[in-house]
């Protein structure tokens, strides 16, 4: 299976029913998987912090939710995460394509992307980095399990070694 098929299965394994997302070139394959899969209801948002709100509402309504976006978009969510999801103990599973690290060609992606794991730690959101597809499905599934069990958000950061390299770096 492809990395995106593995991840979609992991979201289903974790009981995710609602997926909120904003497009990203790397995330496109996974978004295609979930939008075309009737196990999931999907919500395209205008800005990523909306997605956190949508997922909090979904939880209060009885659904488990996941966020799909890029690391720069996750930076847009920090007030929503740190003043709603974390303090209200409302979980969601984040699957985020991580920029700013291996192979990055765009310096504008580096400050938030490279430091995203530490930024999440600082606001109390547990997270892990996946750099090998072999462990992807199990990692995303376990991340969802602990997020919904402990009622706190959890974010999985996907390196380009999983999602594929962006060609601009070698042009």
């Amino acid at each position: 299976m492809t990395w995106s098929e593995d991840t979609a299965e992991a979201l289903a394994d974790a009981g995710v029913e609602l997926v909120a997302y904003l497009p990203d070139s790397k995330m496109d394959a996974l978004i295609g998987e979930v939008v075309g899969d009737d196990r999931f209801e999907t919500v395209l948002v205008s800005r990523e912090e909306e997605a956190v709100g949508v997922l909090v509402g979904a939880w209060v309504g009885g659904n488990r939710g996941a966020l799909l976006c890029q690391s720069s978009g996750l930076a847009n969510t920090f007030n929503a995460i740190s003043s709603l999801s974390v303090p209200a103990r409302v979980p969601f599973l984040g699957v985020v394509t991580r920029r700013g690290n291996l192979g990055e060609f765009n310096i504008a992606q580096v400050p938030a992307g490279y430091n995203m794991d530490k930024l999440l730690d600082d606001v109390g959101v547990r997270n892990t980095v996946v750099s090998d597809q072999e462990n992807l499905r199990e990692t995303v599934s376990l991340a969802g399990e602990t997020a919904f069990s402990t009622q706190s958000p959890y974010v999985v950061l996907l390196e380009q070694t999983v999602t594929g390299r962006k060609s601009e770096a070698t042009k």
Partner: protein
Amino acid sequence: MTDGRANQYACTESVLDITPDAAVVSNLGVASYVLASVSDPKRARNFYQWGSMGVTTAVGLGLALSTDESVTVLDGDGSLLMSLGVLSTVARYDPDNLTVVIWANDVYGTTGGQSLQASHTDFAGIAENSGLNAVTVQDTEAFTGAYRDATESAGVTVIVCHVDPVDPDARPSFDFPYIARRARDSLTTETS
């Protein structure tokens, strides 16, 4: 208090009278303090926000997509101004069980009443041009009629309700996880 604006307390009471079983998602600060002022303290379906300015309407959308119950958002004009894109998102899904009320008091009421400096901005016009039904009301009676119509019609209606600024003493519980859990329990275990 006599410039022909609606009374936010009376309008919030109308919300609870017309839709007594609705989940009500209230913006941080004044919208939540007014809701706490007029609600039974035991009302489980008040999902008060304590932070995340600009995200309240998005919370209401996610909730409306995840329950068959009516959902009403009580947002503020300042909060909407920092997140206008959410109106386009709401219009994309347009759930029949969602109504969005914007308390338009022209000030940042929770931080001391500083002016929005946005009197040139037509929030209902923005909502309409984002693909939603929208109406502007200027008094409590008009609000009550508009709210009843909104809850009985298909799709989402945004009601922009011009109100005088208020400064309530009441507060919701400071126990934020309890607020969320109580609302969730009410919506997931007490209904069919």
